[in-house]
Protein backbone atom coordinates (compact mmCIF):
# COMPACT_ATOMS: atom_id res chain seq x y z
CA UNK A 1 0.00 0.00 0.00
CA UNK A 2 2.79 2.39 0.91
CA UNK A 3 4.65 1.59 -2.30
CA UNK A 4 1.58 2.57 -4.35
CA UNK A 5 1.39 5.97 -2.69
CA UNK A 6 5.13 6.35 -3.05
CA UNK A 7 5.11 5.62 -6.78
CA UNK A 8 2.22 8.07 -7.20
CA UNK A 9 4.28 10.72 -5.44
CA UNK A 10 7.41 10.01 -7.46
CA UNK A 11 5.46 10.24 -10.70
CA UNK A 12 3.89 13.48 -9.51
CA UNK A 13 7.31 14.96 -8.81
CA UNK A 14 8.25 14.38 -12.44
CA UNK A 15 6.04 17.38 -13.18
CA UNK A 16 8.98 19.55 -12.15
CA UNK A 17 11.65 17.72 -14.12
CA UNK A 18 13.14 18.97 -17.34
CA UNK A 19 11.59 17.44 -20.44
CA UNK A 20 13.75 15.08 -22.45
CA UNK A 21 12.19 15.81 -25.83
CA UNK A 22 14.24 17.58 -28.49
CA UNK A 23 11.86 19.68 -30.61
CA UNK A 24 13.48 18.36 -33.75
CA UNK A 25 12.94 20.65 -36.73
CA UNK A 26 13.52 23.76 -34.60
CA UNK A 27 16.07 22.25 -32.25
CA UNK A 28 18.82 20.11 -33.74
CA UNK A 29 20.25 16.97 -32.23
CA UNK A 30 23.85 17.12 -31.09
CA UNK A 31 25.69 14.53 -33.14
CA UNK A 32 29.19 13.37 -32.32
CA UNK A 33 31.94 13.51 -34.94
CA UNK A 34 32.01 9.74 -35.31
CA UNK A 35 28.26 9.53 -35.94
CA UNK A 36 27.53 7.36 -38.97
CA UNK A 37 25.32 9.30 -41.36
CA UNK A 38 25.45 10.41 -44.98
CA UNK A 39 28.38 8.97 -46.98
CA UNK A 40 30.81 11.30 -48.74
CA UNK A 41 33.87 10.89 -50.95
CA UNK A 42 36.76 13.09 -49.79
CA UNK A 43 39.69 14.67 -51.58
CA UNK A 44 43.37 14.81 -50.63
CA UNK A 45 45.09 18.11 -49.68
CA UNK A 46 45.92 18.76 -53.35
CA UNK A 47 42.21 18.47 -54.26
CA UNK A 48 42.75 15.19 -56.06
CA UNK A 49 40.19 12.45 -55.54
CA UNK A 50 41.25 10.04 -52.82
CA UNK A 51 39.25 7.13 -54.20
CA UNK A 52 41.39 4.72 -56.17
CA UNK A 53 38.55 2.49 -57.29
CA UNK A 54 39.67 -0.65 -55.44
CA UNK A 55 36.09 -1.96 -55.03
CA UNK A 56 36.75 -2.89 -51.39
CA UNK A 57 33.84 -0.75 -50.18
CA UNK A 58 31.49 -2.40 -52.66
CA UNK A 59 32.74 -5.80 -51.52
CA UNK A 60 32.35 -4.95 -47.84
CA UNK A 61 28.87 -3.50 -48.24
CA UNK A 62 26.40 -5.99 -46.71
CA UNK A 63 23.46 -4.65 -48.70
CA UNK A 64 25.30 -4.12 -51.99
CA UNK A 65 24.32 -0.49 -52.27
CA UNK A 66 27.66 0.77 -53.65
CA UNK A 67 28.49 0.45 -57.30
CA UNK A 68 31.51 1.94 -59.07
CA UNK A 69 33.74 1.57 -62.08
CA UNK A 70 37.50 2.15 -61.78
CA UNK A 71 39.48 3.84 -64.52
CA UNK A 72 42.88 5.52 -64.94
CA UNK A 73 43.84 9.04 -65.94
CA UNK A 74 46.81 9.98 -68.18
CA UNK A 75 49.15 10.05 -65.15
CA UNK A 76 48.33 6.49 -64.20
CA UNK A 77 46.22 7.61 -61.22
CA UNK A 78 43.25 5.35 -60.63
CA UNK A 79 39.89 7.00 -59.98
CA UNK A 80 36.26 5.91 -60.25
CA UNK A 81 34.57 6.64 -63.58
CA UNK A 82 31.28 6.56 -61.76
CA UNK A 83 30.49 6.04 -58.10
CA UNK A 84 26.93 5.39 -57.11
CA UNK A 85 25.43 4.80 -53.66
CA UNK A 86 21.81 3.81 -53.32
CA UNK A 87 20.83 5.38 -50.01
CA UNK A 88 17.44 3.72 -50.03
CA UNK A 89 19.33 0.49 -49.40
CA UNK A 90 22.20 1.79 -47.28
CA UNK A 91 22.03 0.72 -43.63
CA UNK A 92 24.77 3.13 -42.46
CA UNK A 93 26.87 0.33 -40.99
CA UNK A 94 30.14 2.06 -41.86
CA UNK A 95 31.82 -1.07 -43.21
CA UNK A 96 32.75 0.79 -46.40
CA UNK A 97 34.60 3.38 -44.34
CA UNK A 98 36.45 0.63 -42.47
CA UNK A 99 37.33 -1.17 -45.70
CA UNK A 100 38.63 1.91 -47.53
CA UNK A 101 42.45 1.83 -47.77
CA UNK A 102 42.75 5.51 -48.77
CA UNK A 103 40.30 7.21 -46.33
CA UNK A 104 38.29 8.26 -49.35
CA UNK A 105 34.83 7.09 -48.32
CA UNK A 106 33.64 8.52 -45.00
CA UNK A 107 30.41 8.69 -43.03
CA UNK A 108 29.55 12.13 -41.67
CA UNK A 109 27.12 13.28 -38.95
CA UNK A 110 24.18 14.19 -41.16
CA UNK A 111 20.96 12.25 -41.47
CA UNK A 112 18.58 14.78 -43.00
CA UNK A 113 18.31 13.22 -46.43
CA UNK A 114 14.58 12.57 -46.72
CA UNK A 115 13.13 12.53 -50.24
CA UNK A 116 9.65 12.20 -51.71
CA UNK A 117 10.94 10.31 -54.72
CA UNK A 118 12.83 7.09 -54.11
CA UNK A 119 14.98 7.58 -57.18
CA UNK A 120 16.39 10.77 -55.64
CA UNK A 121 18.08 8.65 -53.00
CA UNK A 122 20.50 7.24 -55.57
CA UNK A 123 23.53 9.51 -55.16
CA UNK A 124 25.97 9.84 -58.06
CA UNK A 125 29.62 10.75 -57.77
CA UNK A 126 28.92 14.47 -58.13
CA UNK A 127 26.57 14.27 -55.15
CA UNK A 128 29.03 12.29 -53.05
CA UNK A 129 32.28 14.09 -53.74
CA UNK A 130 33.07 16.92 -51.35
CA UNK A 131 35.77 19.59 -51.60
CA UNK A 132 37.38 18.68 -48.30
CA UNK A 133 39.46 16.07 -46.56
CA UNK A 134 36.89 14.91 -44.01
CA UNK A 135 38.21 13.31 -40.86
CA UNK A 136 41.82 12.69 -41.98
CA UNK A 137 43.42 16.03 -42.75
CA UNK A 138 46.75 15.99 -44.54
CA UNK A 139 46.57 12.45 -45.81
CA UNK A 140 47.51 11.99 -49.46
CA UNK A 141 47.55 8.41 -50.64
CA UNK A 142 49.79 8.86 -53.70
CA UNK A 143 52.31 10.84 -51.64
CA UNK A 144 52.88 7.89 -49.26
CA UNK A 145 52.30 4.95 -51.59
CA UNK A 146 55.16 3.32 -53.47
CA UNK A 147 53.31 3.28 -56.74
CA UNK A 148 54.71 5.32 -59.60
CA UNK A 149 52.39 7.82 -61.24
CA UNK A 150 52.95 10.70 -63.58
CA UNK A 151 55.04 13.38 -61.81
CA UNK A 152 56.15 11.00 -59.06
CA UNK A 153 58.51 8.13 -59.79
CA UNK A 154 59.49 5.14 -57.65
CA UNK A 155 61.32 6.17 -54.51
CA UNK A 156 60.01 9.72 -54.52
CA UNK A 157 57.27 9.17 -51.99
CA UNK A 158 57.50 10.45 -48.44
CA UNK A 159 59.80 8.34 -46.20
CA UNK A 160 60.74 6.17 -49.15
CA UNK A 161 64.33 5.36 -50.20
CA UNK A 162 65.28 5.34 -53.87
CA UNK A 163 64.87 1.86 -55.39
CA UNK A 164 67.82 -0.50 -55.26
CA UNK A 165 69.09 -2.13 -58.46
CA UNK A 166 68.87 -5.76 -57.35
CA UNK A 167 70.95 -6.96 -60.32
CA UNK A 168 73.98 -4.85 -59.42
CA UNK A 169 76.77 -6.20 -57.18
CA UNK A 170 77.60 -2.76 -55.82
CA UNK A 171 75.86 -1.71 -52.60
Amino acid at each position, binding site marked *: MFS*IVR*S*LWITFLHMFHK*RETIQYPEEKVKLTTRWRGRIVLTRDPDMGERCVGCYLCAAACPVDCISLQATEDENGRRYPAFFRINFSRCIFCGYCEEACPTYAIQLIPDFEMGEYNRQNLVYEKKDLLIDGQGKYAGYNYYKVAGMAIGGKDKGEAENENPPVDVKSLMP
Partner: protein
Amino acid sequence: MIIIGAVLGALLTIAPGLIWLERRMLALWQDRYGPNRAGPFGLLVVLADTIKLFFKEDWIPPFADKFVFVIAPAIVAITVLMSFVVVPFAPGIVVSDLNVGILFFLAMSSMGAYSIILGGWASNNKYSLLGAMRGAAQLISYEVFMGLSLMGVVLMSGSFSLNDIVEAQRGMWYVVPQFFGFLMFFIAGVAETHRLPFDIPEAESELVAGFHSEYSGMKFGLFFVGEYLGITLISSVTVVLFFGGWLGPEFLPPVAWFALKTFGFIIFFILLRASLPRPRYDQLMEFGWKILFPLTLLNLVATATILLWLET
Protein backbone atom coordinates in the same frame (compact mmCIF):
# COMPACT_ATOMS: atom_id res chain seq x y z
CA MET B 1 -34.57 21.65 -21.03
CA ILE B 2 -31.90 24.34 -21.10
CA ILE B 3 -30.08 22.54 -18.29
CA ILE B 4 -30.17 19.25 -20.22
CA GLY B 5 -28.72 20.99 -23.26
CA ALA B 6 -26.05 22.75 -21.22
CA VAL B 7 -25.04 19.57 -19.38
CA LEU B 8 -24.96 17.51 -22.57
CA GLY B 9 -23.00 20.20 -24.40
CA ALA B 10 -20.51 20.59 -21.58
CA LEU B 11 -19.99 16.85 -21.19
CA LEU B 12 -19.56 16.14 -24.87
CA THR B 13 -16.94 18.89 -25.13
CA ILE B 14 -15.16 17.74 -21.99
CA ALA B 15 -14.93 14.10 -23.13
CA PRO B 16 -12.75 14.71 -26.22
CA GLY B 17 -10.96 17.52 -24.40
CA LEU B 18 -9.91 14.99 -21.80
CA ILE B 19 -8.08 13.01 -24.48
CA TRP B 20 -5.89 16.04 -25.02
CA LEU B 21 -5.57 16.73 -21.29
CA GLU B 22 -4.64 13.13 -20.58
CA ARG B 23 -1.99 13.02 -23.30
CA ARG B 24 -0.48 16.30 -22.12
CA MET B 25 -0.50 15.30 -18.45
CA LEU B 26 0.93 11.85 -19.15
CA ALA B 27 3.63 13.48 -21.21
CA LEU B 28 4.36 15.94 -18.42
CA TRP B 29 4.82 13.10 -15.94
CA GLN B 30 6.98 11.18 -18.36
CA ASP B 31 9.20 14.18 -19.11
CA ARG B 32 7.86 14.58 -22.65
CA TYR B 33 5.77 17.27 -24.39
CA GLY B 34 2.86 15.28 -25.79
CA PRO B 35 0.80 16.77 -28.63
CA ASN B 36 2.07 20.34 -29.11
CA ARG B 37 2.00 20.97 -32.86
CA ALA B 38 -1.63 21.36 -33.91
CA GLY B 39 -2.91 24.70 -32.66
CA PRO B 40 -2.03 26.36 -29.34
CA PHE B 41 -0.60 23.72 -26.98
CA GLY B 42 -1.70 21.06 -29.47
CA LEU B 43 -5.37 21.66 -28.66
CA LEU B 44 -6.48 21.07 -32.23
CA VAL B 45 -5.36 17.47 -31.93
CA VAL B 46 -8.81 16.89 -30.43
CA LEU B 47 -10.38 18.08 -33.66
CA ALA B 48 -8.01 16.00 -35.75
CA ASP B 49 -8.76 12.90 -33.68
CA THR B 50 -12.50 13.39 -34.00
CA ILE B 51 -12.34 13.95 -37.74
CA LYS B 52 -10.14 10.89 -38.10
CA LEU B 53 -12.59 8.75 -36.15
CA PHE B 54 -15.51 9.99 -38.26
CA PHE B 55 -13.80 9.23 -41.54
CA LYS B 56 -12.47 5.83 -40.60
CA GLU B 57 -14.17 2.84 -42.14
CA ASP B 58 -16.97 1.74 -39.83
CA TRP B 59 -16.40 -1.95 -40.21
CA ILE B 60 -18.51 -4.75 -38.79
CA PRO B 61 -16.67 -8.07 -38.96
CA PRO B 62 -18.61 -10.74 -40.90
CA PHE B 63 -18.30 -13.16 -37.99
CA ALA B 64 -19.78 -10.72 -35.46
CA ASP B 65 -23.27 -10.76 -34.00
CA LYS B 66 -24.34 -7.60 -35.84
CA PHE B 67 -27.17 -6.29 -33.69
CA VAL B 68 -25.36 -6.71 -30.37
CA PHE B 69 -22.12 -5.48 -31.91
CA VAL B 70 -23.75 -2.21 -32.96
CA ILE B 71 -25.68 -1.69 -29.74
CA ALA B 72 -22.80 -2.36 -27.30
CA PRO B 73 -20.89 0.92 -27.73
CA ALA B 74 -24.12 2.89 -27.48
CA ILE B 75 -24.86 1.34 -24.07
CA VAL B 76 -21.72 2.70 -22.43
CA ALA B 77 -22.28 6.26 -23.65
CA ILE B 78 -26.00 6.22 -22.83
CA THR B 79 -25.65 4.79 -19.33
CA VAL B 80 -22.90 7.22 -18.34
CA LEU B 81 -24.86 10.17 -19.73
CA MET B 82 -27.95 8.95 -17.87
CA SER B 83 -25.97 8.86 -14.62
CA PHE B 84 -25.25 12.55 -14.99
CA VAL B 85 -28.97 13.22 -14.69
CA VAL B 86 -28.76 13.13 -10.88
CA VAL B 87 -25.47 15.01 -10.42
CA PRO B 88 -26.04 18.47 -8.93
CA PHE B 89 -23.57 20.90 -10.53
CA ALA B 90 -24.71 23.90 -8.51
CA PRO B 91 -27.79 24.85 -6.48
CA GLY B 92 -30.67 24.45 -8.92
CA ILE B 93 -28.49 23.24 -11.80
CA VAL B 94 -29.39 19.59 -11.87
CA VAL B 95 -31.27 17.79 -14.61
CA SER B 96 -33.46 15.88 -12.17
CA ASP B 97 -33.11 15.84 -8.39
CA LEU B 98 -34.33 12.28 -7.81
CA ASN B 99 -34.86 11.30 -4.19
CA VAL B 100 -33.08 7.99 -4.94
CA GLY B 101 -30.17 9.73 -6.70
CA ILE B 102 -27.41 7.48 -5.39
CA LEU B 103 -29.30 4.31 -6.28
CA PHE B 104 -29.98 5.66 -9.77
CA PHE B 105 -26.31 6.50 -10.21
CA LEU B 106 -25.22 3.05 -9.01
CA ALA B 107 -27.71 1.30 -11.27
CA MET B 108 -26.84 3.31 -14.36
CA SER B 109 -23.09 3.18 -13.96
CA SER B 110 -23.21 -0.58 -13.37
CA MET B 111 -25.19 -1.00 -16.58
CA GLY B 112 -22.11 0.29 -18.40
CA ALA B 113 -20.46 -3.07 -17.79
CA TYR B 114 -23.00 -4.58 -20.20
CA SER B 115 -21.36 -2.75 -23.06
CA ILE B 116 -18.07 -4.47 -22.28
CA ILE B 117 -19.57 -7.90 -21.88
CA LEU B 118 -21.86 -7.62 -24.90
CA GLY B 119 -19.22 -5.93 -27.06
CA GLY B 120 -16.66 -8.60 -26.26
CA TRP B 121 -19.16 -11.38 -26.77
CA ALA B 122 -20.53 -10.04 -30.05
CA SER B 123 -17.07 -9.54 -31.53
CA ASN B 124 -16.69 -13.31 -31.68
CA ASN B 125 -12.96 -12.99 -31.18
CA LYS B 126 -11.03 -14.81 -28.51
CA TYR B 127 -9.22 -11.75 -27.20
CA SER B 128 -12.45 -9.80 -27.05
CA LEU B 129 -14.12 -12.66 -25.24
CA LEU B 130 -11.28 -12.87 -22.74
CA GLY B 131 -11.64 -9.13 -22.18
CA ALA B 132 -15.38 -9.47 -21.70
CA MET B 133 -14.87 -12.34 -19.26
CA ARG B 134 -12.42 -10.29 -17.27
CA GLY B 135 -14.87 -7.40 -17.34
CA ALA B 136 -17.51 -9.65 -15.80
CA ALA B 137 -15.06 -10.96 -13.20
CA GLN B 138 -14.07 -7.40 -12.33
CA LEU B 139 -17.71 -6.37 -12.11
CA ILE B 140 -18.59 -8.87 -9.41
CA SER B 141 -15.53 -7.93 -7.39
CA TYR B 142 -16.02 -4.15 -7.11
CA GLU B 143 -19.76 -3.65 -7.47
CA VAL B 144 -20.65 -4.89 -4.00
CA PHE B 145 -18.37 -2.67 -1.98
CA MET B 146 -18.95 0.26 -4.32
CA GLY B 147 -22.57 0.39 -3.21
CA LEU B 148 -21.78 -0.37 0.43
CA SER B 149 -19.07 2.27 0.64
CA LEU B 150 -21.67 4.94 -0.12
CA MET B 151 -24.03 3.79 2.58
CA GLY B 152 -21.95 5.55 5.24
CA VAL B 153 -22.65 8.84 3.48
CA VAL B 154 -26.33 7.98 3.22
CA LEU B 155 -26.43 7.12 6.94
CA MET B 156 -24.84 10.42 7.87
CA SER B 157 -26.97 12.63 5.64
CA GLY B 158 -30.14 10.60 5.95
CA SER B 159 -30.95 10.98 2.25
CA PHE B 160 -30.34 9.29 -1.09
CA SER B 161 -30.71 12.58 -2.94
CA LEU B 162 -27.38 13.98 -4.05
CA ASN B 163 -28.63 17.54 -3.56
CA ASP B 164 -29.46 16.88 0.09
CA ILE B 165 -26.11 15.17 0.58
CA VAL B 166 -24.29 18.27 -0.66
CA GLU B 167 -26.38 20.48 1.61
CA ALA B 168 -25.63 18.19 4.56
CA GLN B 169 -21.91 18.83 4.05
CA ARG B 170 -22.11 22.54 4.91
CA GLY B 171 -20.54 21.89 8.29
CA MET B 172 -17.88 19.39 7.28
CA TRP B 173 -17.05 17.55 4.08
CA TYR B 174 -17.78 13.83 4.34
CA VAL B 175 -14.24 12.96 3.35
CA VAL B 176 -13.25 13.55 6.98
CA PRO B 177 -15.71 11.29 8.85
CA GLN B 178 -16.05 8.88 5.89
CA PHE B 179 -12.41 8.71 4.82
CA PHE B 180 -12.44 4.93 4.37
CA GLY B 181 -15.72 5.16 2.52
CA PHE B 182 -14.10 7.67 0.19
CA LEU B 183 -11.08 5.41 -0.40
CA MET B 184 -13.26 2.37 -1.14
CA PHE B 185 -15.56 4.34 -3.40
CA PHE B 186 -12.69 5.82 -5.33
CA ILE B 187 -10.97 2.46 -5.84
CA ALA B 188 -14.27 0.97 -6.94
CA GLY B 189 -14.78 3.98 -9.19
CA VAL B 190 -11.47 3.43 -10.93
CA ALA B 191 -12.48 -0.19 -11.48
CA GLU B 192 -15.91 0.94 -12.64
CA THR B 193 -14.48 3.14 -15.38
CA HIS B 194 -12.01 0.41 -16.37
CA ARG B 195 -9.16 2.85 -16.13
CA LEU B 196 -5.60 1.97 -15.32
CA PRO B 197 -4.54 0.36 -13.05
CA PHE B 198 -7.82 -1.60 -13.38
CA ASP B 199 -8.10 -1.63 -17.18
CA ILE B 200 -8.13 -5.40 -17.00
CA PRO B 201 -10.81 -5.96 -19.68
CA GLU B 202 -8.84 -3.78 -22.10
CA ALA B 203 -5.28 -4.72 -21.12
CA GLU B 204 -3.68 -3.60 -24.36
CA SER B 205 -0.35 -5.20 -23.50
CA GLU B 206 -1.87 -8.68 -23.30
CA LEU B 207 -5.27 -8.73 -25.07
CA VAL B 208 -4.65 -6.49 -28.13
CA ALA B 209 -7.39 -4.08 -27.06
CA GLY B 210 -9.55 -6.47 -25.06
CA PHE B 211 -13.27 -6.11 -25.57
CA HIS B 212 -13.01 -3.47 -28.29
CA SER B 213 -10.38 -5.18 -30.45
CA GLU B 214 -12.81 -5.49 -33.37
CA TYR B 215 -14.24 -1.99 -33.15
CA SER B 216 -13.26 0.81 -35.48
CA GLY B 217 -14.37 4.28 -36.45
CA MET B 218 -17.05 5.99 -34.44
CA LYS B 219 -18.11 2.79 -32.64
CA PHE B 220 -14.67 2.66 -31.11
CA GLY B 221 -15.02 6.40 -30.57
CA LEU B 222 -18.15 5.80 -28.49
CA PHE B 223 -16.26 3.40 -26.23
CA PHE B 224 -13.61 6.06 -25.92
CA VAL B 225 -16.08 8.84 -25.15
CA GLY B 226 -17.83 6.53 -22.70
CA GLU B 227 -14.56 5.91 -20.88
CA TYR B 228 -13.75 9.60 -20.56
CA LEU B 229 -17.31 10.43 -19.57
CA GLY B 230 -16.99 7.69 -16.96
CA ILE B 231 -13.92 9.40 -15.52
CA THR B 232 -15.80 12.67 -15.35
CA LEU B 233 -18.79 10.93 -13.77
CA ILE B 234 -16.82 9.17 -11.04
CA SER B 235 -14.86 12.37 -10.35
CA SER B 236 -17.96 14.49 -10.06
CA VAL B 237 -19.82 11.95 -7.95
CA THR B 238 -16.83 11.66 -5.62
CA VAL B 239 -16.82 15.44 -5.32
CA VAL B 240 -20.55 15.53 -4.64
CA LEU B 241 -20.52 12.77 -2.05
CA PHE B 242 -17.29 13.42 -0.19
CA PHE B 243 -15.93 16.85 -1.07
CA GLY B 244 -18.93 19.07 -0.63
CA GLY B 245 -19.94 19.33 -4.29
CA TRP B 246 -20.42 22.99 -5.18
CA LEU B 247 -19.79 24.22 -1.65
CA GLY B 248 -16.85 26.50 -1.22
CA PRO B 249 -15.78 30.04 -0.27
CA GLU B 250 -17.84 32.83 -1.80
CA PHE B 251 -15.27 34.35 -4.17
CA LEU B 252 -15.97 31.75 -6.85
CA PRO B 253 -19.44 30.78 -8.11
CA PRO B 254 -20.63 27.28 -7.06
CA VAL B 255 -20.28 25.83 -10.56
CA ALA B 256 -16.64 26.88 -10.64
CA TRP B 257 -15.98 25.16 -7.31
CA PHE B 258 -17.62 22.01 -8.62
CA ALA B 259 -15.62 22.07 -11.86
CA LEU B 260 -12.38 22.81 -10.01
CA LYS B 261 -12.77 19.87 -7.62
CA THR B 262 -13.87 17.56 -10.44
CA PHE B 263 -10.85 18.45 -12.52
CA GLY B 264 -8.64 17.75 -9.54
CA PHE B 265 -9.97 14.21 -9.47
CA ILE B 266 -9.75 13.81 -13.24
CA ILE B 267 -6.09 14.74 -13.03
CA PHE B 268 -5.66 12.26 -10.19
CA PHE B 269 -7.16 9.60 -12.48
CA ILE B 270 -4.51 10.44 -15.06
CA LEU B 271 -1.81 10.35 -12.41
CA LEU B 272 -2.96 6.86 -11.47
CA ARG B 273 -2.57 5.84 -15.08
CA ALA B 274 0.87 7.38 -15.27
CA SER B 275 2.26 5.59 -12.24
CA LEU B 276 0.61 2.28 -11.40
CA PRO B 277 0.97 -1.13 -13.07
CA ARG B 278 -2.02 -3.34 -13.83
CA PRO B 279 -2.81 -6.21 -11.44
CA ARG B 280 -3.95 -9.63 -12.65
CA TYR B 281 -7.71 -9.95 -12.54
CA ASP B 282 -7.62 -12.64 -9.87
CA GLN B 283 -5.48 -10.29 -7.79
CA LEU B 284 -8.11 -7.60 -8.18
CA MET B 285 -10.88 -10.02 -7.16
CA GLU B 286 -8.87 -11.13 -4.15
CA PHE B 287 -8.17 -7.52 -3.18
CA GLY B 288 -11.83 -6.67 -3.60
CA TRP B 289 -13.36 -9.59 -1.74
CA LYS B 290 -10.77 -10.26 0.95
CA ILE B 291 -9.63 -6.74 1.87
CA LEU B 292 -11.93 -4.02 0.63
CA PHE B 293 -15.25 -5.79 1.18
CA PRO B 294 -14.64 -6.55 4.90
CA LEU B 295 -13.22 -3.07 5.40
CA THR B 296 -16.29 -1.53 3.82
CA LEU B 297 -18.59 -3.57 6.04
CA LEU B 298 -16.54 -2.56 9.05
CA ASN B 299 -16.79 1.10 8.02
CA LEU B 300 -20.55 0.78 7.60
CA VAL B 301 -21.04 -0.90 10.96
CA ALA B 302 -18.77 1.61 12.71
CA THR B 303 -20.60 4.56 11.15
CA ALA B 304 -23.96 3.14 12.11
CA THR B 305 -22.81 2.44 15.69
CA ILE B 306 -21.41 5.90 16.20
CA LEU B 307 -24.52 7.54 14.76
CA LEU B 308 -26.75 5.47 17.05
CA TRP B 309 -24.54 6.27 20.01
CA LEU B 310 -24.73 9.98 19.24
CA GLU B 311 -28.52 9.80 18.97
CA THR B 312 -29.07 8.15 22.31
